């Protein structure tokens, strides 16, 4: 395993095909680096993410899950923001029941050109997870 895999947190990102995934692609195009332990799964809309998928990710060893939400830009309409918020709230409850730190789930709205914002989010989330989880494990 490479050094970066040992020292960085493992983060699962849910991105959206039309809005936030293009921003993540553009971060690559602009060679804005973030840890290679960040993986993206793309869905049509952030309000279609099931809490059970997020819980499954923690159970399988992901340190953090990040929802790159559509926000008000969602092509399926403005109710997306509230619905994605509800999914996060329900998942937080489930995480508490399973004694998983709710701060291991983050959400931010990313538009199709928010590459720098994405990279900043990943770096700060990675720092947080390394501090809390990796240091607890040591």
């Amino acid at each position: 395993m490479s050094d970066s895999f040992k020292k960085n947190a493992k983060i699962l990102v849910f991105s959206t095909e039309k809005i936030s995934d293009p921003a993540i692609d553009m971060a690559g195009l602009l060679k804005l680096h973030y840890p290679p332990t960040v993986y993206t799964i793309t869905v049509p809309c952030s309000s279609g993410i099931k809490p059970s998928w997020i819980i499954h990710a923690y159970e399988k060893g992901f340190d953090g899950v990040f929802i790159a939400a559509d926000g008000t830009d969602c092509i399926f309409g403005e109710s997306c923001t509230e619905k994605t918020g509800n999914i996060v709230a329900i998942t937080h409850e489930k995480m508490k029941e399973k004694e998983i730190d709710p701060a291991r789930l983050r959400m931010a709205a990313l538009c199709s050109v928010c590459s720098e914002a994405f990279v900043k989010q990943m770096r700060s989330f990675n720092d947080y997870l390394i501090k809390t989880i990796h240091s607890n494990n040591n």
Partner: protein
Amino acid sequence: MKERLGVYICHCGGNISDYVDVEKVRAAIEHEKGVVLAKTTMFACSDTNQTDMVQDIHEHNLDGVIVASCSPKLHLTTFRNVTERGDLNKYTYVHANIREQASWAHSDDKLGATEKAIRLVKAAIAKSRYADPLFPNQFEAEKNIAVIGGGIAGMKAALSLAEKKSNVILIEKENRLGGHTAEWGSLFMTDEKGFELTARIENDLRKYNNVTILTGAEVIDTKGSIGNFELKIRRRPQNDGDPMEIVELHVGSIVVATGYDHYLPKQGEYGFGTSETIITLPEFKQQVDKATGKSLEFKGKKINNIAYIYCVGSRQNEGENTYCSRFCCTSAIHTAIEVKKKFKGMQNIHLTRGIRTYGKQELLYAESLQMGDLYLQFDENNLPEIRSEGKKTVVTVKDILSARKEMEMEVDLVVLVTGMVPRPDQSIGTMLKLPKGRDRFFNEIHMKLRPVETVIDGVTIAGTCQGPKNISESVNSALSAATKSFSYISKGTLETEPIIAEIDQDACSWCDKCSNACPFDAIDQIEMGGRTVASVNPMVCKGCGMCAPVCPVDAINLIGYTSEEMMSMIDALA
């Protein structure tokens, strides 16, 4: 469940393989369950590889195909079509993005990029095992096309669309068409003047009944997506006393051609703003176009000696303007030739960073040398200096063509050869969510393969809003943007992805949560075997998936994004 998968891992020339060890990726996945073929390829999108893939599908009796290459925004459709040519349903194709999200994003960490790529391909394989054949739905598309920006690019795009018998609405924020081209008199490489050229095209446009020209008009709101965009436009009063007009338009696709701005030097940059004898190329060009008489005068002063300083606001060492503005070497030389042809006793001294009069424009450079213009060259670390001595303007430069000898010249006028920058008002980009590149101009999907398309389906870009271009380059891109925008809607119908929600009606006991969550009213209540259950109307469902997480008994899955698929991808990534 698929059992005979073929996996292709692309070098992308070196874009991927310079950072990701593609052979290692191949070795890591070739024994994954269901994989019967695993290959690396130099360019997965090349015709040869596409032909090989079709052959492989038949020879190896594949039931699923995965390509690990660039972003799906570029080549998902390409490989879906290849799959279809191999007689498989195109929706069984699965794509892994190991360029934008592995090799480029982690070009600072080759081992890390390779390990990530292995997991991304494994996740794609996991998804592929479940990818079922699907069949698309069709919907009617608006036949109108909006062109935003009425410079040379927008006008030519509109004209080309009009010739294709499409209804075109040309939206220009100023009160006249023509953009910057209409500001110029003589142009390089043609005998027609800038304002004559734009007037001729405008005249042609006005002959078409299917063209609506809205000047003094700006888009203030956009909604919808390909096939059905809604634009709200604010139009300034066209006659005194008229009210401000709000126009609402429904269009199927959009060409954005909002152009560029002249780079304005900062106060003090090469003495700009400190002396009347230091001006920019656009200002100088207009003076020369206008000037009559035997001699050139500027602010009442006779001009004989002119120094041109190149690459002002372009090719900068750092900051945003590291690009070459392309038109300016040629334009400066062309203007300098005009000066000599029009007036007597003129001397031109060009202080360049190396001349870039590419293609046929080189003839102008040759002509200028023959006419006796002087060329000196500086590098970015030793910029020319300008000082005023009384009424005199003195320029010094270390000429790298003569062993960095310091040259000093007294001139009557300094012309700063300024480049192109993006327009400061980028609101149209913000509304349509158009990505920008590092240079802050709007970004195409692929510089070589999809040069006028953007990641926003149905929106193309034309002319200098995409980056510096001369007129013929702007027109070239405008013609291809028009063709692309037309092709989106020319059939009158568009296919929607067959990604829709599916309800397990045995598990459903109708609680109406899903139908409340659906923003499109796509879920109905039906009777089935004596029970009330939910049912999805496939023609109305847009495939957002909003209904799936709210079902208390987890009876809803979005096709292509089922819990089984998602969990198996998470397992592969973990």
